[in-house]
């Protein structure tokens, strides 16, 4: 399943509803382009909703890290919302769970941005 990313604004936070697979190739490119586009338009608070992302490979993990560091380097914040078990397990074994701010509830997540 091809990755899709739809962006909506909630209380100044850009929420990106991702679905499908974030893998080497199109999936990673879509995520990269979406985050870069948001940053270029001044969005500094980005919440990636991964509830419907059922698969991420190492390239996709790398793309998440890249999105996180790129946002941070531009003075913004990028957080993750609603991880599936598979994605959660991947972030656990790669120790990236300690890097990302992961939220389970959208309202709480939106309020958590500074």
């Amino acid at each position: 399943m091809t990755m899709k990313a739809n962006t909506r604004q909630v209380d100044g936070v850009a929420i990106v509803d991702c679905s499908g697979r974030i893998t080497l190739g199109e999936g990673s490119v879509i995520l990269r382009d979406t985050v870069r586009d948001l940053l270029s338009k001044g969005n500094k608070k980005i919440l990636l909703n991964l509830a419907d992302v059922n698969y991420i490979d190492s390239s996709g993990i790398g793309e998440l890290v890249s999105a996180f560091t790129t946002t941070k380097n531009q003075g913004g914040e990028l957080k993750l919302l609603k991880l599936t078990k598979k994605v959660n397990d991947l972030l656990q074994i790669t120790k990236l769970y300690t890097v990302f701010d992961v939220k389970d509830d959208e309202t709480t997540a939106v309020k958590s941005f500074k």
Partner: protein
Amino acid sequence: MAMTEQRVSYTLDSTLETVDSAEDKATRFAIKLGFGEDEVMQISMAVREGAVNAVLHGNAYAPDKKITLEFVHTTHDLVITIRDQGKGMDLSKIPNPLAPENLLKTSGRGIFLMRSFMDVVEIRPSQTGTELKLIKHVHGSSAGGKEASQ
């Protein structure tokens, strides 16, 4: 000594499509062998990561170089071998992705994930290519009891 029950091999181009194809073949093979859902995901992901390394880092998308993918189902194991025709790799230069200084790197997790998901991972680099062997043990009646066919 384990008896070979089934062997299937493919020769594939050095393309992105090969990565998806290898993953798909691994998924179908693992399902046919009766592995559980989590193990199927682990096997298919390990093969995907191996195929990515072969296509990108091994053959570097070269159209004249091929990837070979082989599945062997023995009594006790599923043995998957991926070979490329690249220049080999220096295993001593593979960083530990869990080291604090590497956590925010955007690459370098493929082999780590393979080792996390498979029971045995063997990498044999040479100047004419790298051979990657991924082994998943067949446990009890959860796998191996079904006859697989292609």
